[in-house]
């Protein structure tokens, strides 16, 4: 089943002579259970593609469809609901709300969706347990836990509930290699469980966890490979 579909999606910032084409007519589909890595040099449009996929940004051309729903047809309120129920984000800088504990951060989408505190906490503890965090960490604030724990918490938040699409923007960028590998294992496991994943990364080894790699350059998808056998060769080819 197709979870995410980008149909000739473009994003232009500014207008006229100052127009910057961040993404140009990108086509991409991700199936349920599939983890897709996006690679490319800085400014190639990787983060733009991710933001468009999650409805954080709106395309200036084309269509983004999540689980059969075209995002352009949704209001801001409906887009927010989509992010609460169907799309999860994982950022490089963890992006946890500093005034909420790890468990509360993980439970944030559920609480925003109106779930009771007790029930949401129960679900959050389960999600944290799934990413390897115990109850001790659950009640700590973001500035009281390590980077790896913070990123696991972010993943727990991205996966909590019935989400089918996980968007990860360089989730290992701020972590040491061992912790980074653990995080990617988690993502892989989630996708193996039926979710669709989109992973932005600079590291070819990390891309090796993906089922497919998409290369971007100057806003265009220039190549894709499945499975990723020789990432270095492909990267050279992209440049």
């Amino acid at each position, binding site marked *: 089943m197709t979870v995410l579909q980008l149909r000739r999606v473009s994003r232009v910032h500014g207008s006229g002579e100052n127009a910057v084409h961040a993404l140009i007519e990108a086509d991409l589909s991700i199936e349920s259970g599939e983890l897709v890595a996006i690679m490319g040099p800085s400014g190639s449009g990787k983060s733009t593609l991710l933001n468009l996929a999650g409805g*954080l*940004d709106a395309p200036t051309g084309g269509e983004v469809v999540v689980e059969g729903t075209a995002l352009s047809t949704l209001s801001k309120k409906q887009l927010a609901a989509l992010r609460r129920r169907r799309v999860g984000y994982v950022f490089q800088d963890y*992006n946890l*709300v500093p005034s909420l504990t790890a468990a509360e951060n993980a439970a*944030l989408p559920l609480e*925003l*969706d*109106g779930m009771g505190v007790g029930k949401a906490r129960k679900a959050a503890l389960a999600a944290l347990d799934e990413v390897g965090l115990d109850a001790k960490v659950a009640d700590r604030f973001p500035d009281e836990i390590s980077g790896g724990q913070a990123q696991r918490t972010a993943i727990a938040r991205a996966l909590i509930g019935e989400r089918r699409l996980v968007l990860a923007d360089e989730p290992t960028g701020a972590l040491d290699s061992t912790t980074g590998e653990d995080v990617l294992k988690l993502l892989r496991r989630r996708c193996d469980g039926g979710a669709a994943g989109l992973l932005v990364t600079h590291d070819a080894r990390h891309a090796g966890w993906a089922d497919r790699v998409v290369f971007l350059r100057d806003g265009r998808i220039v190549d894709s490979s499945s499975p990723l056998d020789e990432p270095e060769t492909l990267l050279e080819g992209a440049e």
Partner: protein
Amino acid sequence: MLSGLRLSFRIARREALRYKGRSALSIALLGIPLLGVSLGASAWDTMELSPVEATEQKLGETDAYLRFDWEGIPVVQHTWDTEWGWTEVPGEPETMPETVPVSEDQILAALPEGSTIAPYTATGFDGSLRVETPDGVGGIQTAGYDLSDPMYEAAGLEYLEGGAPESGQIVLSQAAADYTGAGVGDAVTLADGTAEYTVSGIVELPWDLKTPFAIGDFFEVAAAGWLVDTPEEFTYDDALALNELGMYVWSTPLAADPPTAPPDDNWDGGDNGYTAMVVGLIATVVVVEIVLLAGPAFAISARRRSREFAIMSAAGAAPRHLRNTVLAGGLLFGIVAAVIAVVVGLLAVWAAMPLMEGVAGHRSAGLRIWPVMQGTMVAFAIVTGLLSALAAAVSASRVNVVAALAGRTPKRRLKKRWPIIGLVVIGIGVAAGFAGVVLWSMPLMAAAIVALQLGLVMCTPLLVALVAKLGRWLPLAPRMALREAGRNRGSTAPAIAAVMSVVAAGIAISLTVAADNVRWQQYRAHTLPQGALTVHLSSEGEFDESGQTAPPDFDAEFAQVERILSEHLDGLEAHRIADYMPQEEDCGPYLAESAPGAEESVPEGCLIMYRAERPEENQCPFMEADTETEAALEAALEEARNDPRCDETTATMGFNDSTPGSDDPAVVAAYTELEGDELDEAVSFLEDGGVLTSDRWKVNEDGNVEFTLSYYDSEAVDGEREEVVEVPAMTVDKGLLGYNQVFLGPAAAEHLGLADHPWSAQYLLETSTEVTDTLQQQLAGEFERAPLDDLWVSFEVTDYTDETMFYFVLAVALLCGIVALGATAVSTGLIIAESKADMTTLGAVGAEPRVRKRFAMWQTLVIAWLGAGLGTAAGLLGYVLIREALNRGLKNQYPFEALYGWELPWANFGISLLAVPLIAAVGALLFTKARLPSERRLT
């Protein structure tokens, strides 16, 4: 829904705890005005005694207080809960019957058997004494009570030190002990040295903590009433029995449960609608000021939390979730601010109770909180907290998620629509102001004040952007400061708005208070210039068998006074001021006309009055106009407003029963402030028999002032007769001539049949010595001891100023200055924190550390000056409307009331426009870290 709100409150609470400094600022900005209200409400409620409490305080455990209203004539008593009660002689007789003496035995006979009474005055004291003080001579009040009677202690008299006086001893109040410097065992000496009294104790009457008084059984007993102690509880029947003797009865049980009510209970009707509108206007303006003051702290805080809001948004938060999170902060801060304000206010009132009792002059009934007012304040705080956070909440809900997550501050273009909307809102404000004035609508005026300020706030980003353009010609630090201010308009504009709001409020309050002060000063008759020194000599005269003896020779007596003065005042010159008035014997000729033969013995009821009146053609036509209907009254008032002859106000309609005069140039100069040739001309005019007047409309077409002399005699058949005498007049522009607005020369006075006051004389003094309070007391002591037979000498410094208002305005200015300073400093601090990345860049390219300090200083100056400038403009505009609102009511009557004018509060301007910016700039220089930061920048 509920869960979402709970989450919002949890985040708000934890954010408040995480950023304690920022939270404290927001709470302080919301709470300071509330603290003022809480303090005022609790202080007022604590010091305000209910009628029953006031009764209990004055009567203590005694049963009642009695005094005669109509001695010996039965009365009907209407009020029971105050010492200033209301009784009537039944039947409303046209002429009041003669009073009949009632003895103490008769009073006791009217009371239940076994009752006792003791002389007492519940409203003050009965006599006074002049006694020696450490600085000279002063006066204290006296009461001739026999304190061995336990009734006085039962009434509340308390010994603070020592005990009851024995023969020849007195007790003093604490105020008298402080004033005379005497303690228990010391002696108090009369000013004339004829007696000394030993102090046996220091006492307190709970209802009078201010008056310096002495009590001794040998002082004259002239009490206004009696304290009563009855064996059983005092009843209404007891009161009725005393009413039969013409007595007013004040008793605790009857005050608590009055047996009768006043027949027409419309004492405090008032214009409740008008009061409600004024209160509404003030409340609206206060809400706007608080919102403008506290709002920027929320706005800046929301900007700094934009990443957090973006994270929440990425996790699925809808705009309403983000709005709720910020609003929850406003609600939380509002509640915390209200609770702190109420608690601190109550504690402050509790701690200041002795001080307040000293100021009020009576003991309180204990700390009270006025729960309704405090509850209203909590509600008010919640509303202002929410309103303050509203703009920030809307802004948070529109966060640019992508930019915020990337750590970028998206470049904000100046949206043309805001300044345009701002200008439109200002236009609406001006229109509403005019409409409010024309239609006499307080809501419109309130709307105008609010619209003008909001309009200015909306235009602030444009102004900041324009000012930023000036930076191109400036050195690096001010150039960067100006451009940063322009670039970060989102932070700068709210900070400027905060300073603007507090300065505007301070300016408007100061202008109103200063103008009100001037208005009240106008009601006082100014008869000499400020600071003029005078000596008054007065004599009660002596009587022998044939009547009163001749008046004293004041000039001869003054020679002694002048000798004493010369010892203390350098270069002393004294000039006699005449105080012209009709002579009593002048009644004779009039009586001869109205009742032939009566002039031989002038009766006591004969009274002569004179006044300089405007001739008929110069009188305001309003007095004769038809004012029967509202429309006619309005038309007559409109005509009066446009008629220059209708320049009278209630302030100029007073009357002095005597008129100053002289042809001594020094005296004429003092009263008219004329100099040189003009003074010479005025003196010659007076010498030639003329008068000076400061009211040009008093002069008729022949150049004369018409004096109307009226003779009244209550005994005569034809009780009143008038005579008009014309005297040549010269107009002086500025005159300190009192209500009569006339200054007489000796020749004119003689022509009018007026003569200098026979029993008093006044001298104008000129000296190079500065006169202090201590010198005044010294002189008073020396005059007291000087052998001046039967003369009362008083030395006076003319002073029309009211220091209270000056200090009030200064306090308002300082308070506003402190709040403005706080708002400036904190706002600047937050903006500088936002500019950290730029400072890092500067450091990387070799900028000296002091650049950061200078940058901070210029940022501060930009915010403070723009805020103070706009605030001053808004305050002046606000006062225009407040003034119109206040004056409108005063103009609807004739004579017109003194109106609110323009008294510019220079102290306030100085503090707002100079002191606050400069202090803030110095603070920025001192407290900004010089070290340039080194960090990764995100943009």
